[in-house]
């Protein structure tokens, strides 16, 4: 959904997000919804300004979100509060699952298919009966695990018949009945016991949200890293998707799940990813352990035969043509072997370990500050110290760039700079206003920004850096005859350079991402024009259409809707795909193609014109009739296998997946596991404390606390501040923001402060097995003790944005955290760990005094 579409919601649950403080301008659409009569609910461990402006605030302990959301699912199902016409037609609620499926209710907290040695699941028993369902997600297999070679062929089962369904919902293995059994014990009483939210408040919230959904009304969730930074982060979001699927809050005005992301183009860098596991726009990076030996095997294994993703070969081959040009030929598999193949998880946490282990020797750090932002800071610094060299590009000195001079280990006297061999480069970076290019916001809105002024001195854009580094490397490899150097030689790298500084033309790069025909270099206007025969080149199929013709860069478009227009602002910048503002908006109309209600109309079927029309660009085949049905006698493939009433076109069966047969590594349904570190035993599954598939890296310096370890009795969470941005260096060197938030602190409740004799503004030391930090206490009533499973549990919180550089300073909170990972994404847990806290100061002061700790 678009950010501004939040204003059309009738009820908004903000959970895992402090929207008012961390995305203040985005929050204005919540305020607007409230002004129009919506109920705003905030569910969070801390009472913040978001809570203060909400109609209802519910406190829950960090890491208990799935117990709360699972309780909502149960309450909605058991009280028949769901939007039956929507969910029966558009979700897989009636689909029948394999007989061998085993639920955590039967199996002490584990799904069927668990391999306790590998710590991973096989998904065979989670399939639709008689089918093998392909996943629409790029990283849907365990990276280091061998996969059978017949998977692609098994997906053909989806072309033979529709998935088995029981519209009466009586079949014991239909998704509806499985969900009822799975969530049977997530009662309001259990929700209170696990989360500490009073059961009456929980029921009230669920009923308000459900009653503000349906034909006439829609509700939305908003979340941020308060949901993702857990060992169950993906499943928390999944739990919200189930609620939204049941209540009909997807693809409709004011409905959806709004991810509030933290960096200007964090969405763009996910779409066109600087991520290890994907090629541009969600194509899987080939993996040697999967059936990916040749381009044909890769495409056969990864291409779902049904649904929109059946077009994948066109996108892959067009990408290879964009990257390798004439060197990508049919004979050499379009240059497929130039691409590196994965051998395992190479995300940031394993990369940190690989630095420590001297596997990584040279490291580029491009506008990121892992010495502050990455968990287990001392382990991170150890990794930096074991590198041969590191290049840091930023605009001011960062803790990462001067770890060898002022890092934790240097300040503790463990190591001297003269003992650290890392060769360091600091390259000053140009900032917005000093370079042009496009960024993608959290609603997939791609906006161009202009160059207005000159970057000072030797500051250069990252585009300049990467283009010129590439030119030098191509020159160094020019005369090589080694096969390993063919890829860099073949790489197309002919970007026009402008002016004295030889700045590359950013629009030329955007045109390459958009795509063109190979023969005459004409811009492609729509990804439906891309081909799998090498005749088109396209760097990112989802961005196709952003630059449809020469001189027409739609991310520069700046025409907002005026009064009386639809408010979709289709003329303001450009949204992928093809300027659609709301994904799956076919669901805004009923199966027959009519809006569910006049109040909530978005797109609809126009019989006279025989096409979909409305206030948004239809996210559907424009001329596909609502009454189209696949002819199963013809073994339909692609979009032919989806009906005219199947809105979820990226799924192999066109249905919203309440139950996920393929693609999730930790189960087809969200299940409450305690955080990796928790003060309590799991009240729901006493035999299964943690997510059984969570990624743990046991090594010295990264020890974990056991459940209910009396040495670490408090829940610890990290958070952000309105005036400070993430790794913090930008806002810590900005005079205004540094003055507004000058120093790190820990927020604790008056009850805990009294029991530990901690004074407001007095010093405290917080400790874990990973390290300790020293900060002043901020004693506030915004934190309250929880009652979990019958006993009192205190939670404390600390902003993680500080470091030793800039004007505003303080200890690095991430010293306290361990490196761990969600099974699906390898995301770390920062929102719910355990710790100890005491009044006073660290036993050993820094060897560098406060005054010396400056450059």
């Amino acid at each position, binding site marked *: 959904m678009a950010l501004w579409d939040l204003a059309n919601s009738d009820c908004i649950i903000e959970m895992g997000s402090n929207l008012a403080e961390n995305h203040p301008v985005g929050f204005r659409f919540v305020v607007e919804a409230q002004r129009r009569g919506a109920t705003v609910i905030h569910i969070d461990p801390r009472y913040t300004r978001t809570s203060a402006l909400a109609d209802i605030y519910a406190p829950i302990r960090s890491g208990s979100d799935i117990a709360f959301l699972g309780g909502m699912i149960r309450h909605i199902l058991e009280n028949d509060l769901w939007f039956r016409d929507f969910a029966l037609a558009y979700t897989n609620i009636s689909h029948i699952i394999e007989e061998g499926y085993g639920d955590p209710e039967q199996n002490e907290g584990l799904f069927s298919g668990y391999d306790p040695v590998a710590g991973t699941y096989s998904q065979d028993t989670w399939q639709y009966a008689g089918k093998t369902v392909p996943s629409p997600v790029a990283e849907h297999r365990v990276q280091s695990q061998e996969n059978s070679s017949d998977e692609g062929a098994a997906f053909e089962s989806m072309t033979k018949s529709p998935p088995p369904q029981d519209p009466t919902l009586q079949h014991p293995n239909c998704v509806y009945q499985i969900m009822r059994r799975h969530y049977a014990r997530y009662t309001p009483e259990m929700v209170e016991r696990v989360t500490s939210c009073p059961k009456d408040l929980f029921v009230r919230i669920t009923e308000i949200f459900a009653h503000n959904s349906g034909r006439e009304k829609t509700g939305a969730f908003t979340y941020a890293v308060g949901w993702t930074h857990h060992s169950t982060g993906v499943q928390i979001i999944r739990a919200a998707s189930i609620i939204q699927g049941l209540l009909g809050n997807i693809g409709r005005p004011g409905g959806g799940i709004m991810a509030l992301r933290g960096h200007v183009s964090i969405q763009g860098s996910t779409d066109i990813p600087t991520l290890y596991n994907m090629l541009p726009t969600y194509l899987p990076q080939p993996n040697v352990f999967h059936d990916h030996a040749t381009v044909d095997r890769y495409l056969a294994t990864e291409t779902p035969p049904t649904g929109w993703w059946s077009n994948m070969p066109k996108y892959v081959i067009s990408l290879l043509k964009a990257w390798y040009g004439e060197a990508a030929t049919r004979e050499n598999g379009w240059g497929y072997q130039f691409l590196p193949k994965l051998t395992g998880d190479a995300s940031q946490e394993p990369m940190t370990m690989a630095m420590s282990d001297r596997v990584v020797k040279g490291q580029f750090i491009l506008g990121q500050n892992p010495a502050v932002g990455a968990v287990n800071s001392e382990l991170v610094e150890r990794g930096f110290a074991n590198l041969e060299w590191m290049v840091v590009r930023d605009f001011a000195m960062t803790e990462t760039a001067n770890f060898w*001079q002022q890092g934790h280990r240097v300040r503790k006297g463990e190591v001297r700079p*003269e003992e650290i061999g890392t060769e360091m480069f600091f390259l000053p970076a140009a900032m917005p206003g000093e370079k042009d290019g496009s960024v993608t916001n959290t609603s997939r809105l791609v906006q161009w*920004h202009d160059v207005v002024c000159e970057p000072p001195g030797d500051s*250069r854009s990252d585009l300049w850096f990467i283009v010129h580094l590439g030119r030098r490397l191509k020159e160094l490899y020019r005369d090589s005859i080694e096969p390993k150097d063919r890829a860099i030689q073949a790489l197309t790298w002919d970007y026009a350079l402008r002016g004295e500084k030889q700045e590359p033309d950013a629009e030329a790069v955007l045109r390459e991402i958009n795509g063109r025909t190979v023969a005459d270099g004409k811009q492609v206007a729509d990804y439906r024009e891309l081909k799998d025969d090498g005749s088109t080149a396209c760097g990112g199929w989802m961005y196709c259409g952003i630059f449809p013709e020469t001189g027409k860069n739609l991310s520069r478009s700046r025409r907002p809707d005026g009064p009386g227009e639809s408010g979709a602002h289709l003329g303001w910048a450009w949204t992928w795909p093809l300027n659609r503002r709301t994904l799956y908006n076919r669901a805004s109309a009923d199966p027959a193609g009519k809006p569910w209600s006049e109040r909530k109309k978005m797109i609809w079927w126009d019989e006279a014109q025989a096409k979909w029309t409305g206030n948004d660009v239809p996210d559907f085949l424009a001329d596909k009739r609502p009454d189209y049905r696949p002819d199963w006698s013809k073994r339909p493939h692609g979009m032919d296998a989806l009906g005219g009433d199947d809105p979820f076109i990226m799924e192999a069966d066109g249905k919203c997946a309440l139950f996920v047969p393929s693609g999730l590594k930790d189960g087809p349904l969200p299940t409450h596991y305690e955080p990796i570190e928790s003060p309590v035993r799991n009240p729901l599954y006493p035999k299964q404390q943690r997510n059984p598939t969570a990624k743990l890296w046991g090594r010295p310096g990264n020890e974990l606390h056991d459940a209910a370890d009396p040495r670490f009795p408090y829940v610890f969470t990290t958070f952000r501040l*309105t005036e400070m941005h993430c790794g913090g260096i930008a806002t810590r060197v900005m005079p205004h923001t540094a003055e507004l938030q000058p120093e790190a602190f820990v927020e604790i409740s008056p009850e805990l402060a009294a029991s530990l004799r901690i004074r407001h503004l007095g010093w405290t030391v917080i400790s874990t097995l990973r390290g300790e930090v020293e900060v002043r206490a901020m004693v506030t009533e915004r934190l309250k003790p929880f009652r979990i499973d019958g006993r009192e549990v205190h939670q404390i919180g600390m902003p993680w944005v500080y470091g030793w550089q800039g004007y505003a300073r303080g200890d690095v909170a991430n010293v306290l955290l361990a490196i761990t990972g969600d099974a699906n994404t390898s995301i770390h847990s920062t929102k719910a760990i355990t710790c100890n806290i005491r009044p006073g100061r660290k036993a050993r002061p820094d060897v560098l005094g406060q005054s010396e700790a400056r450059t």
Partner: protein
Amino acid sequence: MTKIRRRLSERVAGFVRDWSLPRQMAGQSVMSEAARSTTSANLRPRLEEADRIGTSVCPFCAVGCGQLIYAKNGRPIHVEGDPRSPINQGTLCPKGAGTLGMLLSPERISDVLYRAPYSDRWEKRPLAWAMERIAQLTKQVRDETFAGTLPDGRIINHTLGLGSLGGATMDNEENYLIKKLFGGGLGMINIENQARI
């Protein structure tokens, strides 16, 4: 003496006539001509000095507020919310409103800094020297660590010896070329950014 006194009283009277506060205290609207004085009439908006204005996007969170950047002689003089943007309609949060302070921060570094292995200090170096050295080091690590196949002969064509972190603060075009050069050209696997964490 009388002449001087008269001149003084004329000046005082002139000042009082020009001074807007008594008129406003007497009840005239602050939005009217009553608020005008010689001083305020001579005030000029600093934006008038700008020789260039451009559309920008706030560089902090992912809400994507529109900004207008005003520059004079190649240097920014003002940053404000873009009133046309349907996202922010001219508003900015404290971070966004402080953007000019980031661009002009006294802590900003505009030289290339180099720290030799085991050294205790940074030294300034020419940009071209650093770029060549980085290219050479990149090639050296790649050549030492590149693996064409697994021991069983399966093709991997990758290097684990090089890593790259970062991208979420950058433009799509920059991310695209990082992945293209590092992944597609050099065979690097370790490419990550803030989107995951």
